[in-house]
């Protein structure tokens, strides 16, 4: 990848800052409960998760479907360690107040969520990463299901609260920056995405792309396949864990049962719509996806009467049908997604030579 010129870098950073300022202004003007603000917060969380999945699927060519499992780990670690002590009796009412009798500072718990997910990923990766394409996909999907079952296991109840909700931990309304809730998720996921971008542009990132494009050639060039795959997997899961913790903060309550494989599919579709192998594509697609599913297409779910004419088809559930038809159209006819494998800041450059095999 071409090194970014200094002016381009500064312009990009300024654009990001402007975006943050816009988000901040929107919240001060419209209040934290406005639909736009909710979409922005959720979009920021999903942007991080989608980019972490893209690192694996789009940049390293490892088709993993375990993202929901690692998000679950991050969300649970965060929630378990930040529930205030005096609330334990109420939350763990079936388990005598639980056995974890301390709480961690918010940021420490957030990072710990990522670290635990990463450690788990390292262990899972040892056997699983030897598999290829669809076998890897189904094995990681299986691991996510196993994680979900283990967390809900009654014997782990004193830690995970079994299959009951975890709640009353600090959420975005406890992490106000400059009086707004929207900046915290923006800053955390901005920093994480920035780190992923640095990684992608490093020698490791180039090795990942080499593995994606041709494993045999990469190995012949002296790239240790397993080491790099494991590295990509662990890093991706670290950020998925942090993303999961952010999602827990966004939702206010967390329950293992909601981290089903359908969640992974959602994220995969965001990555595909944005373009496999494009960080900015994933970010744009996450915001679009969340905005469409939560906000812009809402009207499709309500029956409408215009001039006494009952608009056909509009009723509960129609939104998701339209949405999935759009997704199928993208998947079938616009396989490169919004950005393909280019980045937003590369767009003005003269067309680079095509990097083949992005979707291998």
């Amino acid at each position, binding site marked *: 990848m071409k090194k970014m010129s200094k002016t381009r870098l500064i312009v990009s950073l300024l654009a990001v800052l402007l975006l943050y300022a816009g988000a901040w202004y929107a919240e001060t003007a419209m209040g934290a409960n406005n639909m736009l603000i909710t979409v922005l917060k959720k979009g920021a969380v999903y942007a991080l998760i989608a980019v972490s999945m893209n690192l694996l699927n789009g940049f390293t060519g490892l088709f993993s479907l375990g993202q929901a499992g690692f998000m679950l780990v991050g969300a649970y670690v965060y929630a378990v360690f930040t529930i205030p002590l005096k609330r334990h009796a109420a939350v763990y009412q079936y388990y005598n107040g639980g056995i974890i009798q301390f709480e961690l500072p918010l940021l420490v718990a957030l990072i710990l969520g990522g670290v635990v997910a990463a450690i788990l990923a390292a262990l899972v990766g040892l056997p699983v990463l030897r598999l290829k394409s669809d*076998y890897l996909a189904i094995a990681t999907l299986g691991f996510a*299901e196993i994680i979900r079952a283990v967390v809900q296991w009654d014997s782990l109840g004193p830690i995970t609260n079994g299959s009951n909700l975890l709640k009353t931990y600090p959420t975005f309304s406890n992490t106000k920056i400059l009086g707004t809730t929207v900046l915290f998720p923006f800053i955390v996921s901005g920093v994480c995405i920035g780190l992923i971008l640095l990684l992608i542009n490093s020698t490791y990132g180039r090795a990942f792309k080499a593995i994606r494009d041709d494993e045999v050639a990469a190995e012949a060039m002296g790239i240790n396949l397993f080491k790099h795959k494991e590295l990509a997997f662990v890093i991706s899961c670290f950020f998925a864990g942090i993303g999961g913790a952010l999602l827990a903060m966004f939702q206010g309550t967390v329950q293992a049962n909601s981290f089903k494989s*359908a969640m992974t*599919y959602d994220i995969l579709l965001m990555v595909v719509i944005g373009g496999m192998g494009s960080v900015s594509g994933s970010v744009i697609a996450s915001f679009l996806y969340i905005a469409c599913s939560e906000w812009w297409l809402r009207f499709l779910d309500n029956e409408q009467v215009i001039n006494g004419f009952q608009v056909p088809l509009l009723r*509960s559930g129609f939104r998701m*049908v339209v949405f999935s038809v759009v*997704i*199928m159209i993208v*998947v079938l006819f616009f396989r490169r997604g919004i950005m393909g494998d280019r980045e937003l800041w590369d767009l003005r450059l003269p067309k680079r030579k095509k990097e083949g095999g992005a979707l291998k």
Partner: protein
Amino acid sequence: MFDRILPYILAGISVGGQYALIAVGYTMVYGILRLINFAHGDIFTAAGFFMVYLTASLPMAVSIPLVIVLTVALGFLLERAAYKPLRTAPRMSVMISAIGASYLLQNLMWYITGGLAKQYPVLPWLGDNVQIFSASTKVVTIVTPILTILLVIALVMLIRYTKIGMAMRAVSHDFETSQLMGIRINSVISMTFVIGSGLAAVGSMLYFTNYSTVTPTVGAMPGLKAFVAAVFGGIGSIPGAVIGAFIIGICENLIKAAGYTAFSDAFTFALLIVVLLFKPTGLFGEKTAEKV
């Protein structure tokens, strides 16, 4: 001891047979297209809904064949719409298309049913109770394994002794060469989806006789388990898929008998991972150097 475990073993054999009927669809499609048809579980669910809606206005004797016809048509359409345009695309794109198709089918079913669980009609005779030793169960428990085995034998005969069966074997052996030999790939692939969907429709009748309510996402889990069964038996091998499905069905119910109901799903996936690591070709799979 025997009295306590018997109902679980019976349930295991029954559910194993139902998984087997789904697993055959997976294994055939994978054998030919090298594609995990993620939407297969949703076809199975759709067959359940067809039955719910058809029996509301038609007699049972008309509904049952009509359900099979409609499910087959759905499977055929799915292949034409979601997989055929991607015949030359990389495998990952086809898999994403499969996930998208599954998402679409689920949302469509949610829209049509309003998201409510529908009561599955009681099929005559299959839903009657019957006594086996000390355990009371439904007739479907005994019918399932017998019907499964009969259908699978018929299918194996079809593949071994008919022209279309020979074409299927040729295509799964070598996609391009068989095309050069004048085999119409598209009709062979369609036939695979037709057979797979038809068996899934039969499987769904047996499955929902036991579980009685249909929801839009109910097929996802049996679908995944049937896939695991197909991998366990050796993907591409029909007898393998059937044996794998019975083993998974029985093990799952024995785990329930031991009091670890929460882990019955997890067990299936743990089994999958162990199989992939130690014998990636499964019990009866052909040797390929490709998977690991």
